[in-house]
């Protein structure tokens, strides 16, 4: 957790980054944040975050690009919706977190392991139309490389138990028939989004 002391120097604002974030799909909502901290006390993974959502929103307002993009806050968000339900300003905080993950990936801030997981998941959708857990897992470890083998070994008991109880099919289900169409839909949606952005 970051320190809470007041900076001895004046805060240098960088409005370029703030404006970039405000232009994201749900980004403008951040301007409504009144720093009440309801999200911070509601968050299920707050203790695992560098900054609570409240602090992260403040950093965005200050234009602190590196702090925001490198933080694990959005990656620790599990989309449990507690903050979204409780926010007195009606900010869809979870949806803002989706945007921030998206922005971090686009800008190449992908060192948090969740970024690899998210990309593996999306790749699975694009290549099959459905998500196969074994496929996501394989893609994840390929992306993360050898460093992650240790954690994989630590979790091997979980995997073995799942295999024993037929919870981990080794073969993927068939690709959807309309995969070609789905890919066209995705391509179109992504080009539309670029035009708007």
């Amino acid at each position, binding site marked *: 957790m970051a320190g809470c002391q007041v900076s001895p120097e004046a805060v240098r604002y960088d409005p370029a980054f703030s404006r970039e974030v405000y232009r*994201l*799909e*749900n980004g403008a909502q951040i301007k409504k944040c009144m720093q009440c901290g309801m999200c911070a006390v509601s968050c*299920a*993974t707050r203790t*695992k975050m560098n900054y609570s959502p409240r602090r992260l929103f403040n950093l965005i307002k200050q234009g602190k690009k590196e702090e925001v993009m490198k933080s694990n806050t*959005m990656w*620790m968000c*599990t*989309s*449990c*919706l*507690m903050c979204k*339900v409780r926010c007195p300003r009606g900010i869809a905080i979870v*949806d803002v*977190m*989706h945007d921030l*993950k*998206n922005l971090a*990936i686009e800008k190449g801030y992908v060192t*948090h*392991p*969740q970024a690899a*997981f*998210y*990309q593996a*998941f*999306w790749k699975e*959708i694009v290549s099959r*139309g*459905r*998500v*196969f*857990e074994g496929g996501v*897992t394989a893609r994840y470890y390929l992306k993360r490389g050898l460093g992650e083998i240790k*954690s994989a070994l630590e*979790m091997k*008991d*979980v995997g073995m*138990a*799942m295999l024993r*109880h*037929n*919870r*981990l*099919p080794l073969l993927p*289900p068939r690709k*959807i*028939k*309309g995969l*070609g*169409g*789905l890919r*066209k*839909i*995705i391509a*179109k*949606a992504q080009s*539309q*989004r670029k035009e708007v952005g």
Partner: protein
Amino acid sequence: MRYSFYPGCSMEGTAVPYRKSLEPVAEALGMQLEEIPDWNCCGATVASGVVGDYTQQVVAARNLALAESGNLDVLVACSSCFLSLALTNRRFQEDEHFRRQANEALAEAGLKYNGSLKVRQILEVMANDVGYEQIRARVKRPLTGLKVAGYVGCQTMRTLPWEFDDPEHPVVLDRLIEALGATPVEFPMKTRCCGSSQALPAEKVLVDASREILESAAAGGAQMLITPCPMCQLNLDAYQGRVNQLHQQNFALPVLFFTQLMAIAFDLPPETWALKYCIVSPFTALAPLGIR
């Protein structure tokens, strides 16, 4: 009671026991489920982190477009699929600009969605379309004496808050447990996050979150947990051993899909109970009911 049915990817993998119990239970209650042909992954809450909400919702909308001609309510059992499909549907109905844009994208595959359908969560359907009285009437093996923690999970109630039950302290699952003849226990963590998809990237998040939930269920005297969410079920069941290992605990709480418990209470054929898929054995908890 006819529905378009969206199973979701997990029902083809880790949540096979959900589908194996859900379909016969639905049939026993007079529900007809018609699977959406060639459905695709809804994107869950993960895809939008890579490609943004818009693209994710267009991907989800392909399913609604495929279902629309059937003109039936879309029944969703997975909480994350429900979130994705219900919010997409809402946007089609309320945001004209979005609808126009999204339909341009869907047109690339010859599809169109007008926003005419309703997306329904299975617990809400159980409570409102089927009704607790109907469920109670179907019970042939009352689960008398069984203490159950109804773990609703986080997204089920909070996707469309205040439209159905309380987003933080819902009672829908507790009423269902009662209807089956079992006893719902006091369970303050019933909608707390289980750690979701952090299993691979940050196991500690999941293990810590799941520990709190299991502790809360155990403190209420529960002999088992039931849930409507595939992710919650997998985390609490498959990672319970890791919770015990990393937190020096001795939890042995079986975690079933609520439909598995319904199949038992309805006395449907044992294969519909799908108990062999349970990683934490349910047989100690179920022994008093004569189930071995």
